[in-house]
């Protein structure tokens, strides 16, 4: 009798074997408290070292938005989108969340190797923990975004409530991104170098600071493609809800929903597939 048969006969299970997907998710759900607590502690620790602490999560995107507003506002001149400040803030804040999660996810496994090598738990909790940490930052940013909308005289309507489902879908989408980037950087460390580049490219191609419909009006094909760009979809939805002069279309909602579900689903599958490989030495 081989050792394997002997082990099986006595009810032993293979160690480190990747559990079935549902079992894996159940295990992760059981330890959700770990992800939340780790996110909270990490976020506190990160803020404690700076004098302005939590304020940075609001200050940084605001500075970014102001600088872009100044530079591109002048550059674009009369091509500036209507209601430029709320338009720009919406774009910059939402995108800073999506790109933040993408980047944080990328470092979530490779940056916590000590934990991965000493404790066994569903590794998925690491990118999820990184996402939760970014959500903590997102909340004050959302408050600030609403303030900007109010200050720049956007009519307050019930439609603003729709920002909640938009945020929710955006979080689903970003979590999927975090799971994908977490695994990719484990396989190919070089990708960490590429991430800032990717973030920049998407920033410039997603109409964060310019009105896509104006800029691309002579390129109908490009405009058609952009309709499927998830970042553009989420940003457009938020603008349609809160910035005067912009509207949402049913297509945008559908696209956002599809991106959220597909990215999260793919992310979970993709990350789970390599569960046995995280924490190796090389």
């Amino acid at each position: 009798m081989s050792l394997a048969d002997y082990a099986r006969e006595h009810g032993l299970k293979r160690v480190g074997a990747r559990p079935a997907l549902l079992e894996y998710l159940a295990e992760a759900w059981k330890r959700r408290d770990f992800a939340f607590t780790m996110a909270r502690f990490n976020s506190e620790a990160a803020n404690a070292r700076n004098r302005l602490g939590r304020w940075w999560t609001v200050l940084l995107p605001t500075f970014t938005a102001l600088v872009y507003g100044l530079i591109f506002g002048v550059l674009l001149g009369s091509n500036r989108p209507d209601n430029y400040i709320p338009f720009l803030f919406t774009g910059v804040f939402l995108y800073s969340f999506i790109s933040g999660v993408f980047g944080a996810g990328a470092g979530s496994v490779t940056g916590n190797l000590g934990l991965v090598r000493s404790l066994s738990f569903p590794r998925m909790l690491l990118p999820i923990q990184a996402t939760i940490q970014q959500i903590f930052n997102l909340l004050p940013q959302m408050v600030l975004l609403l303030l900007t909308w109010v200050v720049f005289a956007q009519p307050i309507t019930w439609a603003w409530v729709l920002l909640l489902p938009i945020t929710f879908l955006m979080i689903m989408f970003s979590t999927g991104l975090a799971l994908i980037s977490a695994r990719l950087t484990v396989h190919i460390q070089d990708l960490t170098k590429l991430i800032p580049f990717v973030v920049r490219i998407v920033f410039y191609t997603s109409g964060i600071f310019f009105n896509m419909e104006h800029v691309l009006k002579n390129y109908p094909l490009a405009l058609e493609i952009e309709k499927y760009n998830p970042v553009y979809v989420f940003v457009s939805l938020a603008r349609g809800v809160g910035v005067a002069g912009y509207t949402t279309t049913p297509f945008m909602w559908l696209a956002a929903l599809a991106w959220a579900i597909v990215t999260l689903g793919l992310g979970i599958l993709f990350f789970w597939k390599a569960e046995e490989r995280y924490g190796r030495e090389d």
Partner: protein
Amino acid sequence: MAEKTKAAKKPVSTKPVVVVDDVHIIYKVFSSGRRATKGATTGRKSFARKLGLREVHAVKGLSFTVYEGESVGIIGSNGSGKSSLMRAIAGLTPIQGGAVYASAKPALLGVGAVLLPNLSGEKNILLGGLAMGFGRKEMIENTKAITEFAGLEEFIDLPMRTYSSGMSARLRFSIAASRDHDILIIDEALAVGDQEFRNRSEARMREMRDSAGTVFLVSHSMKSILDTCTRVIWIEKGELIMDGDPLEVINAYNVHTGSDTID
């Protein structure tokens, strides 16, 4: 002392808890610079040299079975594959051949693994417990006992990166040992602790073993191993040299290393 001897002679059940079946661990590492010995790489030499990619065969087809209530000492010189094997048993490192089977999820207490260096000891206790799947309430209740066991009452609110290696090893041991594990692997984690802590933790390990838990202990302290283990496995260069009664194996090892034998 009488109790210790009794525990060591305790009859071992025939229920297997851990089965290690022809396990191979190979690390692929990007090397740099020259190395002193030649020919350690595999056949595709030119390719390996070009990329600086070296394969290190750390564990070469080990097989053994561990039964319920045994505590197994693992000895061997530095770099013999002990830690790699332990990580494989805990399921923390991928293996390239064979398999490890276990009746429960083994918990590993390794050396050098700082949990979250920027967080305080207290927060590490909570997070470590949550990651192991314990409830928040019971971890909070246990925090005091864990801190006391580790003897770190004064420093528990400081970030773990400020701890000495001995202190962080003590904390990690205390977190892991705060609960009974069916299978606990201790990988030199006690080597840096002071004598008082070592005695306390060895007592705790015997306690765990006697409550039908299985303990693996990797150590260079033959005294620790003799005091706690019922069986010793000697590994050298990823291969099993000897497996059996602690005194016999340790004496053979001592002859090999040129130390005095123990009666």
